[in-house]
């Protein structure tokens, strides 16, 4: 067991452990905070896979953006007074069976598939390469992404503004 293995198991443990807290915690605020552990753990996994730019993007967008947005929504909709003890829609047991079933099927598939033996890519800074790809091969999706983001921005403003009656 080398040092990189220990680091991998540590980071994976953090990510999966906090994902478990997200799924099993009864308090939505605890879930939202545990999601931060998952996002940071996933960013660490990106770094162990040599994706330095994506690790930084993950921290900036997920932890700095989406998570703060989620916490805002939790605080705005969560009334301290009403304690929701039961917060399940599908029963707990069927949901557990479905997730374990999905996990079992896919873990068998992963175990049986022949993934080939390609050498891992060498670790090098990825930012210049990604930038070049975004402006050459993926320029159309890139432009579409900006349109999607603009539409999302306008829609979010439209949905959440106060109604002004004439």
């Amino acid at each position, binding site marked *: 067991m080398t040092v990189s293995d220990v680091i991998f198991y540590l980071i*994976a443990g953090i*990510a*999966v452990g906090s*994902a*478990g807290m*997200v*799924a099993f915690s009864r308090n*939505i605020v605890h*879930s*939202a905070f545990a*999601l931060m552990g*998952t996002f940071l753990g*996933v960013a660490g*996994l990106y770094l162990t*896979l*040599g994706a330095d730019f*994506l690790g930084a*993007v993950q921290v900036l*967008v*997920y932890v700095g*953006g989406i998570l703060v*947005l*989620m916490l*805002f*929504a*939790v605080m*705005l*909709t969560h009334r301290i007074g009403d304690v*929701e003890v*039961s*917060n*399940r*829609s*599908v029963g707990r047991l*069927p*949901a*557990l069976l*479905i*997730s374990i079933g999905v*996990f079992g099927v896919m*873990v068998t598939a*992963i*175990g049986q598939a022949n*993934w080939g033996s*390609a*050498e*891992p*890519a*060498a670790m090098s800074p990825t930012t210049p*390469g*990604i930038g070049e*790809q*975004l402006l050459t091969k993926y320029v159309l999706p890139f432009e579409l*992404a900006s349109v*999607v*983001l603009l539409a*999302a921005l306008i829609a*979010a403003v439209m*949905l*959440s503004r106060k109604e002004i009656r004439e």
Partner: protein
Amino acid sequence: MVGLEHYLVVSLLLFSLGIYCVLTRKNALGILLGIELVLNAANINYIAFSYYGGGGYDGQVFAIFVIMLAAAEAAIGLAIVLGIYRSFHTIDVEAIDRLRG
């Protein structure tokens, strides 16, 4: 030695937990949290295959688009949740059964 399968199993664990979270929550925000878990699991797969499949940037660029869509989805989803909360005064997805505003 950590290989591709290890990353796939970690991502699968995140995916299963996300599915469980989506299925069991009554709270609309809890469902959104579960969806974020599922999207992250998909992203780990993209990066892992990109790394163990001989490099190249295709997987990473796709992951960037997934992150972009997740951000848009979170913004719209939360705006809708807040809108629902304004008109129903709850975000329990089982209590929201009227289409008429």
